[in-house]
């Protein structure tokens, strides 16, 4: 266990530093996240174990979400060959609102739909937007503060390095 922890820390620090606004937090099991996307396809966080998952909560009325979404689309495009899984969750809005918003700002993003907001409630984010990074064992390891420029080099390098890390043992 100790060796695993050491390897983890060494790999992350050498591959890429934690970028600004990303917090390494006290680990806890990720709450359930089972939703349909805007096209009706089901998504289950539990079924994505074995991968790092980028979980992001947003709403169209939130100014920082509006500013951040194009960066998220760029990031998804740039990391599409990585092993990172994306779970981008709209909080409590309907399909028409999401369709229009993403059509204007990030047409390639396929959002999950938390239609009644209850999945978001279970995650208890600090506010919207909110992003978590969940490890391959389903443990929440990092949290991002507010909107981030995800398509900048520092963030891409960090996420790319993370995506190939095994789960931590502590």
């Amino acid at each position: 266990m100790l060796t695993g922890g050491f390897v983890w820390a060494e790999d992350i620090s050498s591959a890429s530093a934690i970028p600004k606004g990303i917090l390494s937090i006290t680990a806890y099991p990720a709450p359930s996240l089972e939703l349909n996307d805007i096209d009706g396809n089901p998504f289950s966080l539990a079924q994505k174990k074995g991968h790092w998952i980028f979980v992001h909560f947003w709403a169209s009325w939130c100014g920082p979400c509006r500013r951040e979404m194009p960066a998220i689309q760029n990031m998804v495009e740039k990391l599409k060959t990585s092993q990172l899984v994306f779970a981008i969750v709209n909080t409590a809005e309907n399909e028409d609102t999401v369709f229009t918003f993403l059509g204007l700002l990030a047409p390639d993003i396929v959002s999950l739909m938390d239609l009644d907001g209850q999945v978001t409630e279970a995650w208890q984010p600090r506010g919207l937007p909110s992003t978590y990074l969940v490890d391959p064992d389903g443990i929440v390891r990092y949290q991002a503060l507010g909107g981030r420029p995800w398509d900048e080099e520092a963030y891409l390098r960090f996420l790319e390095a993370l995506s190939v890390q095994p789960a931590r043992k502590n």
Partner: protein
Amino acid sequence: MANNNCKSQQKQACFTQQVIVRVLLTLAFGLSLFSIGVLYAEDERSPPGFENAQLRLQLFPWSTEQMAAFFEARGFPARMIETLSAYCFFTASIKNKRNDVLQMDLARWEFVSRKGKLQRIPRSQWPPLWEKMNIPLASQSTFRWMLLPETLHFYAHEKEGGNVVLRKTTAIFSLRARFGLGENTEPVIAIVNNLQCADAAGAIKSL
């Protein structure tokens, strides 16, 4: 429904049609949302607020019309909007300028007029009311996310915002907000004077 049709038709053509209509609606709505900011820009006034080396706090008042337009656009039921129109809304924007944690606790915020302390409506007061009114969960959720949390630790240089709700009043009042810095450390005190609910001030133009 519209989206389901889109799935079975040529997605791009359908999307373009929808976007043209909705861009117009979005622009109209966006103009109403940002009218406060525009008004402040026009006369070069700053929104009411406080700033020192440790934090910046700004308060943007919402008129009843702005509040109603925003919530209507989010699909809130009319009965919910009617209820909310009895309250005074401010969007608070807070930036921690320190290199360490700044503790916000709304219980340590006092709104005071000449007649005494004003009642702030805490987050916990809304859910029982919405339950009684049978408000859809989605509207409850959106409303909740728009409120400033009751407590929040702002990390170094973090900026967050949200709504603070008071009982509507025509009085001019002040805010005295204490932000904690940890044990055995004097709090940072932010004082904002000459606050008014937007409708009472008459400073916010009608939509």
